[in-house]
């Protein structure tokens, strides 16, 4: 398949990934974003009210 025929990515992926370093710990920015998203979804799951069902008749 011709790569030119592929739809353009919303962000430029044509470069090495960005990494963060803390001593022996190395973490990609992409993975850090995913971890942050998981924490946000976790907190929202605890705080957002759950829709009430019809209940037993």
């Amino acid at each position, binding site marked *: *398949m011709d790569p030119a025929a592929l739809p353009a990515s919303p962000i430029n992926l044509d470069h090495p990934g960005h990494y963060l370093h803390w001593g022996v710990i190395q973490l990609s920015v992409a993975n850090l974003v*995913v971890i942050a*998203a*998981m924490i946000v*979804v*976790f907190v*929202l*799951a*605890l705080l*957002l009210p*759950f829709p*009430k*069902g019809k209940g*037993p008749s």
Partner: protein
Amino acid sequence: MSIGWTGRTREAAIRALPPGKLLPDEQPAYVASWIYVFGVLTLSALAIVLTSGTVLALAGPAWWHTSALGHFVNSLHLWSVELFFFFMVIHLWGKFFMAAWRGRRAMTWITGVVAFATSIGTAFTGYLVQQNFDSQWISTQAKDGLNSVGIGAFFNVLNFGQMLLWHVILLPLVLGVLVVGHILLVRLRGVVPPIPHTVDHTDAAEDKS
């Protein structure tokens, strides 16, 4: 007259999990929270992983590397795995903070932990069989790490055929058994209630029994 082992197994299964308990149509009030949704979201993502993986296996690498539909199904397989882990980690956090092993649910917790570890192995072997520079990089890095702890004597991450079979047969089979066992244990013991404000001695007593 003896009912034989099949009859005894059937009766034991019905005693442990009668139909109303196996497929309940209502849950306790405390389950009405978004944090209880992530187990079934994980299962839904796993269903997409298995379905897209089956299509990939049916059509083969030449299809998923060269055709537009093949690329799409290949991407569907990857992104459903991403969602599978995303939901599973939130499920894990939720269950950890509600101490979900309470009330004789230790085996439910343990099967979940082992299923999580097996999922990592399954995803890892998936990265090894991508047939690109990424899989070459991952496999050459992983073999050094695995050899350094002695596991490399039992399998070889550079062996493409071995890793492909692990990815499509062995590990999904183990994961499937663990997931089914995990769900049956959830049905058997029920969904774990929230931690009470005061210490519930019933749970502690149950754990010791």
